[in-house]
């Protein structure tokens, strides 16, 4: 479960996130949309503990991320748009390293990594150096390492970038399954199709504020046109105008 209360984040004079409040319950697949520089990534960075909020608070599974960051991070996983990987390690070595940092037993690491690696077709790359892998393959390695410890909250920033249609499908399926099992999924994306297809609820951010939050149907009800694209454009462009 993610609870965001009155979150504000300023960069000098610029207010990137402006007093947003949001609760994403356990097991929900939440997709956040918004134009460039809307404040999505900043919100995610505050949630994942990479920066302090100017004001407000974020709780992960009831744990305040600023007061008790370590406990919060134990329960979550975060995959940025360009994830960091140790380039001279092999994917297997990287999985073992991240698994051990999360306190996983060797047998559990092996078991979880094998299952996930198979689903993401990583078998042939497991013993190859990460530096030689394509961007999409690296993205899959990062996702597997994040999912291994079965996080209660999974935050992804533009996860589909670099993934081919097949592996984008695999990722969507896994995220849906995990959400059904109780994992909270928080995805930031520009791909409206992902939101339409996958999201239980959608949030639209613009100029640091949450312009709208609701299920696809609820958002449709606020707009004459049923398309998410029209809703998105009307919310973000009206505000600009």
């Amino acid at each position, binding site marked *: 479960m993610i609870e965001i209360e009155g979150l504000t984040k300023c960069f*000098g004079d610029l207010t990137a996130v402006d007093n947003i409040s949001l609760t994403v319950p356990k097991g929900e697949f939440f997709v956040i949309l918004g134009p460039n520089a809307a404040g999505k990534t900043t919100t995610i960075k505050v949630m994942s503990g990479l920066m302090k909020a100017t004001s407000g608070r974020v709780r992960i599974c009831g744990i305040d991320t600023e007061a008790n960051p370590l406990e919060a991070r134990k329960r979550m996983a975060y995959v940025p748009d360009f994830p960091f990987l140790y380039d*001279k390690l092999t994917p297997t070595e990287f999985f073992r390293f991240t698994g051990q940092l999360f306190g996983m037993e060797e047998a559990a690491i092996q078991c979880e990594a094998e299952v996930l690696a198979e689903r993401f077709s990583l078998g042939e790359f497991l013993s190859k150096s990460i530096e030689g892998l394509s961007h999409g393959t690296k993205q899959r390695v990062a996702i597997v390492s994040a999912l291994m410890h079965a996080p209660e909250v999974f935050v992804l920033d533009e996860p589909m970038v670099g993934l081919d249609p097949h592996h984008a499908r695999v990722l969507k399926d896994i995220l849906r399954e995990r959400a059904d099992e109780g994992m909270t999924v928080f995805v930031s994306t520009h791909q409206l199709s992902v939101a339409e297809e996958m999201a239980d609820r959608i949030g639209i951010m613009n100029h640091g504020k949450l312009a709208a939050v609701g299920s696809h149907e609820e958002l449709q009800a606020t707009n004459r046109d049923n398309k998410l694209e029209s809703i998105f454009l009307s919310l973000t462009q009206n505000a600009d105008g």
Partner: protein
Amino acid sequence: MDESRPIPYWRLLAGVNRTQNWRRLKLAVSQSRLHAFLMGLFVVGYAWLAFGLFHKGLQFTSSFPGLGPVLIERMMFLLFAFLFLLLLLSNVIINFTNLFRNRETHFLLTLPVPHKVVYRWKIFESGILASWAFLFLIAPLVIAYGTTHNAPWHFYLVTPVFVALFVVLPGVLGSWAALGLARWLDRLAFQIAAMLVVVLVIVSISSWLQPETVTDEMLETRVLDVVDRLLARTRFSLFPYLPSFWVSSGLTLWVEGAVMGTFFFGLVLLSHTLFFGYIAATKSGGLFFASLSAVNSRGGGGAWGFWKRGSGAGQAAFQPKLLDRLAKWFWWGRADSRALIVKDIRTFWRDTTQWGQSLILLGLLVAYIMNLRYFSHRLTSDFWIDLTSYLNLGACALNLATLTTRFVFPQISLEGKRVWIVGMAPLGMRRVLLTKFLFSTAVSMTVTMILVGTSCTMLSVSIDRIIYFTVTVGVMSFTLNALAVGLGAVYPNFREENPSKIVSGFGGTLCLVLSFLYIVGMVTLMAMTSRWAFGGSSTMAFWAGWVLFLGVSFLLGWLPLRAGIRRMATLEV
């Protein structure tokens, strides 16, 4: 997941980084055996040559009864005092990059790794990166000190322990300074503060390095008094609260056989290292995260916003800034080349690490020139004036080579993933390369010619020889820049964004080695065929020397530049 079992963060981080570095090393050796051989040769050659020179020098100094041991002891105190200062500076720069600009740091902060563990790991890593080269450089001197004094075998065991304890202190202090800089200063504020510090250091050095008036009578009758006055300027190294004082005292006492004294200073050092090390390891994680958050939260304006005139949104953002207006003065140059140069200057200006290193180099150069002013007063023999003037040419050229290797060589590589922007533009990669060459030559030639002209004036050299040295270094500027740009294009590294790491590859090492060989060879040639120096050569020999110098300079510059242009024509990124 076993919640009760403690996670061995340190072991995991050390393990993963050890594997990474070992594989990097293996790959580097397997990719270029020549590079590995050159590096090995340099390491062994330096250690051997430096030890030989230091040993001879110390033996010579110790042969002066009474005075020798005093000078050598003071040299040891000065060595560690300056080592402390250099380690501190180096640790500030490397910690800043490692704590706030490093992708691994950001990655670890998203994992359940405590802030204090990330901080501890990063200052450990920075400490090693900041210290190893300095320790390698001074090791031959310390060993020569031991052999000159017939130190017992255990001196060579105690010294590494003292040095290992010692390097922790500048490491910790440097990391705290980096935290403070990151927390309170944005880029522009840092640049202004750094410039003020450099000016302050230059002013302090110029007032500190006042010449001592020593008459022949004083030298004959009051030697000890004169020595005492000369050594007064180095007395700061005897300040008992300096960690360098504890190391120097411990080691010099050990050589003298005063084991209890060494034991005392060893315990002083150990207690401080443990105290500061403990605070850094356990209490600084929170400060680190606050500083990191401040860096990540920094906006474009802030307290220094008033400096940033011309910035703004919409049309205001397109208003030409100072640099754009300056570039228009060069109306006769092509617009695309001017745009490339303006981009390069801006990139350099906005990279704090590059700036910091340039300022340190500039500060050292100014200190060097100020020293020359007083040095020349003591030179009475023509031989020494001649020798110093050629050594000065060599020193200035070596400085130039450091600049070209460090800042010019990585230019093409730094275009990196952005190379398509200039590569696809109508100006073409050939002109990109030539523009970078001409611009870097113009800048470095101006700086070096001023430097040589000023230093020759300080040495009170005649005007015709000032012109001779200035023209010589001007030719060397062309060659060294062409060599750096050419080899930078032949051996690009588009994966790396850190210029220091680009330089440490094969191409950078080759560039540095060739530059140094060229300088040593040409300065020797010029000195041997000089019309004035060392008895004077014939006019024929003088002109033959010049023709050879120009020929070698042309070939060493033109061949790599041509190879670089050809490489650019077939570049695949």
